[in-house]
């Protein structure tokens, strides 16, 4: 009998190559930072926690985006939908005097509804996802500007409480729990991000719906010939991505405590970048939540490195991200062609 149980055999399964690449490169970059700037505190838990705090909203959105990309689609509306969520919350609480939860609920209806609608158009009207979601992006951005063309601050006890809520990381020393030094904490956004990654992993690995997502990305025609519900799956994936966009918008509103019609412009591309350097194939069929998690970390460690350096212009971050993206697309190309050659 073939020994598929053996650890070595499991580890060398080619389906993990992309995840290994992401984690490997993250570790290299992180080790580089540790080597160069450990005296400035790069290795502290605080620095690591800040990677999560400063990028949670991208990460939350990347969970949904990963699923969309695995189906072989794309969603350009996420930045605009997240921005619109911020506008809903800001305008609703500050101008209309509504409770923020009401605004978030309204945003959820809007975001999920728009996602489902776009999914329906993509599947049943056979319009390319790029065009459909580009339309969705313009629509959401337009509504943002209709609501207000000025930035609106959010002042509400509920929002303040949620944004200010933190869990300090503790350690056990001399018989009692004390906060670690330098002080490090995680907040609501980080927890939401981690929960979304866990939910995403569960959906992708443990449900039929999740496996159908992979099947559709592998070969949509085959998937429907195998009797899989490709239409329903695609529509739900865009709906779920709408949900993630709204949650990302909530998270961003908590982060900046304001709503602005031009916020998160180009955010969709940052999110797609996170997913791609996390090993998600733009052609569909391959990707994982753990990869996306490390993709987010990898993308966010670069600005952190530049900050620690102190002398470099922040635009170097963009260049480094671009190079990373290029590197990953080359690796993907290599993986795809070498898999094809074995046939």
């Amino acid at each position, binding site marked *: 009998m*073939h020994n598929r149980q053996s650890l070595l055999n499991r580890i060398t*399964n080619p389906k993990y190559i992309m995840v290994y690449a992401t984690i490997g490169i993250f570790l290299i970059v992180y080790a580089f930072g540790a080597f160069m700037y450990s005296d400035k505190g790069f290795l502290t838990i605080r620095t690591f926690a800040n990677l999560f705090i400063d990028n949670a909203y991208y990460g939350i959105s990347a969970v949904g985006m990963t699923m969309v990309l695995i189906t072989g689609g794309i969603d350009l509306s996420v930045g605009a939908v997240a921005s619109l969520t911020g506008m809903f919350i800001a305008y609703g609480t500050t101008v209309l005097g509504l409770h923020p939860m009401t605004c978030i609920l309204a945003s959820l209806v809007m975001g999920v509804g728009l996602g489902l609608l776009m999914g329906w158009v993509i599947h049943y009207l056979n319009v390319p996802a790029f065009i459909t979601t580009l339309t969705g992006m313009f629509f959401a951005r337009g509504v943002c500007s209709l609501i207000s063309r000025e930035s609106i601050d959010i002042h509400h006890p509920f929002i303040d409480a949620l944004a200010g809520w933190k869990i300090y990381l503790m350690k056990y020393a001399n018989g009692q729990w004390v906060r670690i030094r330098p002080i490090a904490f995680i907040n609501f956004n980080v927890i939401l991000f981690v929960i979304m990654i866990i939910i995403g992993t569960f959906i992708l690995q443990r*449900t*039929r719906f999740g496996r159908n997502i992979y099947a559709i990305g592998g070969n949509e*025609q085959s998937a429907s010939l*195998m009797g899989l519900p490709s239409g329903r799956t695609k529509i739900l994936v865009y709906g779920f991505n709408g949900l993630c966009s709204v949650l990302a918008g909530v998270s961003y509103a908590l982060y900046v405590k304001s709503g602005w019609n031009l916020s998160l412009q180009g955010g969709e591309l940052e999110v797609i970048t996170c997913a791609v350097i996390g090993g998600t194939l733009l052609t569909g069929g391959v990707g994982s939540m753990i990869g996306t998690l490390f993709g987010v970390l990898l993308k966010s460690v670069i600005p952190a490195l530049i900050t620690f350096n102190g002398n470099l212009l922040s635009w170097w971050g963009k260049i480094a991200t671009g190079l990373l993206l290029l590197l990953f697309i080359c690796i993907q190309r290599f993986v795809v062609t070498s898999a094809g050659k074995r046939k």
Partner: protein
Amino acid sequence: MSELLSMKGITIEFPGVKALDNVDFSLNAGEIHSLLGENGAGKSTLIKCLTGVNHMDEGKIYLEGKEIRPSSPMEAIETGISTVFQEVNLCPNLSVAENIFVGRQPMKHRQINWREINQRAEELMSRFHLDIDVTRPLSYYSTAIQQMTSIARAVDIQAKVLILDEPTSSLDENEVQLLFSVMRELKANGMGIIFITHFLDQIYAVSDRMTILRNGHLVGTYGINELSKVELVTKMVGKDMDVIFNLKRADVKPDSRITLQANHIGDSSHIKDISLTLKEGELLGFAGLLGSGRTETAEMLFGASRIVQGEIILDGTKLNLTKPFDAIKAKIAFCPEDRKRDGIIGDLSIRENIMLAVQSRKGFMKPMTRQEQTDLANKYIALLGIATPDCEKKAGELSGGNQQKVILARWMAAEPEVLILDEPTRGIDIGAKAEIQRLMLEMCGSGVSVIFISSELDEIIRCSNRIVIMRDREKVAEIDGSSCTQQDILKIIAEGAA
């Protein structure tokens, strides 16, 4: 034996054509029933109607006495009809195990039970004598294993009816035997199997009965011992075999001028030293096993792979071929082996496909008018007998034989001096094969020099003036086509001696 499936009076009309006209078909439990016919005879349409892809205009389908009307592949699978298609219809990115179970994964605590999936997949594959790691992605494995995976999926679904649509076209002899033993085992368990193939020997090897279709009509259903191979072909094509293959070799005079000459050419990787000459109006056959260097040589002559040594001379001038465009300009044409991948552009119309080479040679700055294009396309559709309502039909919707004719038309329209055809008759039925061969010989008659690569020795012998035999990436012999037998060639291929 009890009747498992019965289709009565099936009629399907597509715009302009009756794809199936009042066809009956029946399948018993524990039977392997071959479905035969040329390309375009309606086999695929009948299968698609059974699997819910196409919808019938008239007729009834009964499964175990109950009427069914599958409207989607999903519904067909649920009623117990599973299909293994010619092209593997699985997901390359999923593991072998998952491909068998996706959509109906065993669950435990409302979660997918991966352990059970992998275990059961392993058991299924070992039933097929395949000891492989089922957790690796499907794309990691050979086409044969992929094909077995899709059969395993159908078997595990506990289908009552299993349709195998050309499952053997990409399998080698051992794999075919393996497939046959699996089919016999399934048959013994009471499954009804519909088997479609172009290989007549395979039909006789496993089938119990056969049903023949021609042009959408039912010719008849026969027991396997009722028809000889010759009678079978006659019924499929509607003509006698002698008439079909009444071909005359190209007439080459000893003093005909030499058009193409290759001296000791070799590429960077495999081929070291090939020399050959080609005369005007001559048909030169390339025989040899797959991978013996036939295709690589052809690609060098077409500039698709670069030569690192030797020279190619056309009409006395040395050619410097660095890309196919150079060859096209020099009036060398090449029909590649895999027409779906390299030849036909399925989304373009027949007219556009035919125009490609002409336009490329004329240069894109001098476009032809639409009327000129249509006239040219219609001329070749009539000349080659391409079965289509008009020249605007998408080439991808044609049957294999007709696609091959479109590629031929493309190069004929470009009026080449040298035409290289790599396996032009692979995967098409016997009638279309004969027609392609006739067309090749007609082109020779009009002065074109043809290089004809084929794995089927009988057609090489039937058509070639001279035959080049390749073995292990070398040219081992060149023999006269009119005075050799299959045994002669096989001997040279096996032993390497001239």
